[in-house]
């Protein structure tokens, strides 16, 4: 029988989009957590770890409250784009974002903390603005670990199930990602489809993690002794 590849393409598209957003949000938060002291830092630190420990259904419920059709954000989105956010493929992006950003923040933060602050101090002393310090010194020195963190976030955003099903649902051909499609196939007794998707997604994840590890294991941005 022919295999419907739509879920795989959807998952990849969702993963690419959500990773791009996760990188923008996550790196800013990770840098702030690693290098700045500000009020509410502990709370922010705990809050970004929350999605790692809460059940997906709880996260999904919160998101339904925040982006649902009755919520201010949901109404605004509907007013701008003409259709509701929930139970669309865009909602799957939001789900993947919630799923992957905490991981990205955790590993990016570790990457920033690995950079010897002596270099940042030297850069400031030489007259560099904070922006310049970040782009010319911190980022290049943490680059490999940051790339690895983004790769990891990409891999993770491929595999969200719980939050996706809560806010994007399971609409074949519209919001059905790989993880959801596999669940559907097993429930529906379609063993061949389930097996194929499981193998493809496992292979993909393995490849991505191998790359991430290899990137991270090469030279690190430490200070020479």
């Amino acid at each position, binding site marked *: 029988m022919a295999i419907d590849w739509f879920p795989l393409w959807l998952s990849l598209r969702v993963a690419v989009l959500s990773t791009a957003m996760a990188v923008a949000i996550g790196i800013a938060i990770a840098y702030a957590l690693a290098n700045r002291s500000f009020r509410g830092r502990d709370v922010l630190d705990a809050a970004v770890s929350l999605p790692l420990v809460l059940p997906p259904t709880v996260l999904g419920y919160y998101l339904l409250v925040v982006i649902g059709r009755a919520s201010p954000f949901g109404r605004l989105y509907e007013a701008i784009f003409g259709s509701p956010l929930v139970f669309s493929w865009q909602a799957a992006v939001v789900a993947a974002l919630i799923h992957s950003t905490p991981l990205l923040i955790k590993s990016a933060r570790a990457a920033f903390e690995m950079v010897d602050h*002596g270099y940042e*101090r*030297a850069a400031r*002393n*030489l007259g560099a603005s904070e922006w310049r310090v970040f782009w010319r010194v911190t980022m290049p*020195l943490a680059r490999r670990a940051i790339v690895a963190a983004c790769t990891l976030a990409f891999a993770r955003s491929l595999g969200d199930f719980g939050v996706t099903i809560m806010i994007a649902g399971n609409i074949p051909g519209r919001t059905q990602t790989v993880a959801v499609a596999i669940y559907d196939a097993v429930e529906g007794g379609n063993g061949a489809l389930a097996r194929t998707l499981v193998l493809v997604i496992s292979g993909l994840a393995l490849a991505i993690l191998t790359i991430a590890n290899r990137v991270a294991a090469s030279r690190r*941005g430490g200070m*020479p002794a």
Partner: protein
Amino acid sequence: MIQAQIRKSFAAARDSSAFSLDVEFEVQAGITVLFGPSGAGKTLTLECIAGFEAPDEGRILVGGAILFDGAAKVNLPPRARRCGYVFQNYALFPHMTIRENLRFAARGRQLEKHRKVNEMLERFHLSEVAGRKPREVSGGQQQRCSIARALIGAPNVLLLDEPARGLDAPLRTELYSLLDQVRKEFQTPTLVVTHDLEECFELGERMLVFREGRLVQAGTPREVLERPANLAVARLLGRFNLLPAEVLALDPAQNTSRLRFAGNDLAGPYLKGHFRGDKVWLCVRPEELKVCSRDGKPEPNQIPMQLERAGETPGGVRLQFEHGLTVHVERAEYERLRHNREWMIEFRPEVIRVL
């Protein structure tokens, strides 16, 4: 010119005891050395000037600009202070070449930057390695690059934190002549932190002696060595015999005094501000004392002493006598006297300092 008045205290923490820095000094052009043991607050002083640490109160002026003023709540960020800082490990950016490291710190338009970078590469003999990464060049080249990078932005002050620490002898010599060149060519007031007295002599026109967060003496290295302000400074310098003695008599008319050390009388200079019966410390450098054999009648100010140990040093021989007295003599002198049974030590009145 640098004017600094810095007060900063730290409460005792689990891994450190309470510490307070309270110093006030003024420095003109040229090299000034901040000398003192580790934990005296020298590096903290540099960090306060560079803006890495904020004093609790005080005022820091460099070249007429106020960098910090506790009362007026002025605290410029490090990037606005124009203080060239040479870090102990150089902190050259490892992902940039030598040229890019200099370029990062250069100011002005592209063309201007390019010209400045080339000029500095030339001056510091780095042109040939300009395209290499810091880890691919020698230690001396890294050192030159770090100083060039600190200077390229035309800072109002150059700050060096123990620049010679961990360097072997040839590299140290290179550093001293490099800093001498910098002093002549750039006229940037320079502060150098060190705990090495030899380095003070190599570098400094002026030295500030730090101890436990306080400035205990200021002057040329020669002045400080000739006249340590107090017992603590003398101990810090580590170049003195410090011998307990008692003032027996004072004669302002003759400008002399009589002192008693280890049961012997010594003639000394007149001691202003001391009284008869005062317990004092004789402060004499090992190379200022003379030894001789006990042939014939002892001259005035010669004291018999028991030799405990003789040890070779690069410069000669170090003789250790009873009462913890050390004398440095030249090899030839020692060879001549080594079969001595009894030793006499001569304290010439002009070398006797009293603290």
